[in-house]
């Protein structure tokens, strides 16, 4: 399989601080890739660059062989790159259903948007079922709990029908049960999509990850299978060790 996403020699400098520092990162079509690293490692920044939110200082990003330079956020979505946010952002004044419907409708011609939504499209129905939000469909997104919002965001991402999905800490703050469901959902999505997931939780990684990229201080520390990553002393040093210090007990398996 060919490379769907190619990041070459990427750097970004914020006020003299190198948040991303010479990163090369390749994800093949159909892969489920986990991206880990301690707080401030640059994981979110990397996704921000891929999706067009942040402009790189140097380096290139290409998607499906096409350079993304100069492409704006919505244009990248139209190419098939979708993302969620670390702190989920949904439209609180709209219902769950309307949020999903909006996410599913961006390929429609603008003029056809002037018509009212007529029932529930198949895509939206599937997103509702996948995320278990069917019963909340008619409620305003503003009343959702933290976990439900995350599900809605994942649902919106699915409804977009992207080729590459970037999820920024999708299970943060979820209960054990919800994590398992998300993990299974990711696994099933990854069957026919390319997925990149930022995740801290080692247990989650052990269960659902195969390939892992470790970022540290803006650089790629290593890449490999979960076992290799977990066994690597450098990773234990910068990531697990530091996490232990921070008493983030859920990070250590």
């Amino acid at each position, binding site marked *: 399989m060919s490379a769907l996403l190619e990041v070459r020699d990427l750097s970004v400098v914020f006020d003299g601080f190198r948040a991303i520092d010479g990163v090369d990162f390749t994800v093949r079509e159909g892969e489920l890739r986990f991206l880990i690293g301690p707080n401030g490692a640059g994981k979110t920044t990397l996704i921000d660059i891929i999706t067009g939110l942040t402009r790189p200082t140097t380096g290139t990003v290409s998607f499906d062989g096409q350079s993304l330079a100069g492409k704006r956020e919505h244009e990248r979505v139209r190419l098939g790159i979708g993302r969620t*946010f670390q702190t989920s952002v949904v*439209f*609180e004044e709209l219902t769950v259903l*309307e949020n999903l419907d909006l996410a599913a409708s961006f390929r429609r011609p603008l003029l056809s*948007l*002037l018509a009212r*939504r007529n029932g529930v499209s198949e895509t939206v129905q599937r997103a509702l079922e996948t995320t278990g939000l069917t*019963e909340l469909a008619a*409620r305003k997104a503003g009343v959702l709990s933290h976990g439900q919002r995350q599900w809605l965001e994942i649902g919106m991402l699915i409804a977009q029908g992207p080729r590459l999905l970037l999820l920024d800490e999708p299970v943060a703050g979820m209960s054990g*049960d919800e994590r398992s469901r998300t993990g299974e959902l990711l696994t099933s999505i990854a069957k026919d999509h390319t997925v990149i997931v930022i995740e801290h939780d080692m247990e989650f990684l052990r269960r659902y990850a195969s390939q892992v990229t470790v970022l540290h201080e803006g650089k790629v520390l290593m890449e490999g299978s979960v076992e290799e990553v977990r066994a690597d002393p450098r990773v234990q040093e910068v990531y697990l060790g530091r996490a232990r210090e921070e008493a983030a007990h859920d990070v250590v398996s």
Partner: protein
Amino acid sequence: MTAVLEKKPVQVAPKEPRRWKGAALFAAVAVVALVVMPLVLEPFRLGLLAKYLCYAIVALGIGLAWGQGGMLTLGQGVFFGLGGYAMGMYLKLNDAGGDLPDFMVWSGVEQLPALWAPFRNPVLALAMVVLVPLVVAALLGTLVFRQRVRGAYFAILTQALAAAMVILLVGQQGLTGGTNGLTNFFDFFGNDISAESTQRGLYLTVAIVLGVLYLAAWQLVRSRFGRLLLAVRDGEDRVRFLGYNPATVKTITFTISAVMAGIAGALFVPVVGIISPALLGVVPSLELVVAVAVGGRFALAGAVLGAVVMGYAKTYFSEELPDAWLYLQGALFILVMTLAPKGIVGVAGALRDRFRKEAAA
């Protein structure tokens, strides 16, 4: 997900009766406006109402742009003026026959300026009423929203435009009639403009145009585009990651609101008999924003109601306490924005809910 499943689904109110109620209310208001008012109001009062309904058309546009789209536009007077002058120019040329309009003669202009030439033709003039605000707003929106100018910056920009428009108009005495604007009209498409029947016909025209535009705006708000517009208002940056360009959504909406203001301006001219810089500068633009806030900016009906209520209030207070009106208006704006951000419509809704609860208990 257990938490999700455990949560009891809330029954949403069945939609049909509510829609039916809305339609009934609209029909009732239409009957009052089209049948009752012309019967009970004397010509002078009917003329005043026609004027307020013109403002209500502008307010409807502000409700769309600001209430639904989050674009605080403080310069709708610009578009109101563009539509108004287009109509005024036609009427002046029409009255002058083949000669120069009176004010041009007085300011020593000897040849009709090229800018005026297209307005001889009534069809072209009416097209300009829509096209000029449309093109200006579309250009402005494209430039401004692409650059992600928003919030207070956008508001100040639109206000500056209104100020600039006044300066431009006042400075070109021979071309625009300067401070006096365009006035002294006699003929309106073959009718004596000041005749009672003409004015009644104009009133009905204004009311019908308002009704039609209201329905169009209502459809827009209810459509997917309307949902998208709310999303842009509440999270423009997130909308980009749903694959939409917020700049396009905003430009379209702003342009629609500008066209509404243009149409309102064109109707205003034969109703009131004048268009002048004082009617479209910063102050009138702001007054309409205040009116929309007072009526309730999040509901289209609130915007329309606000314009009519504030129109009457202005007339009343300017007669009784001319100096106090400006301060009263400012105080009202602050009160509404802090205590009742949803305006009259919001307060009415809250009262109704409370009443229902008590009735149910």
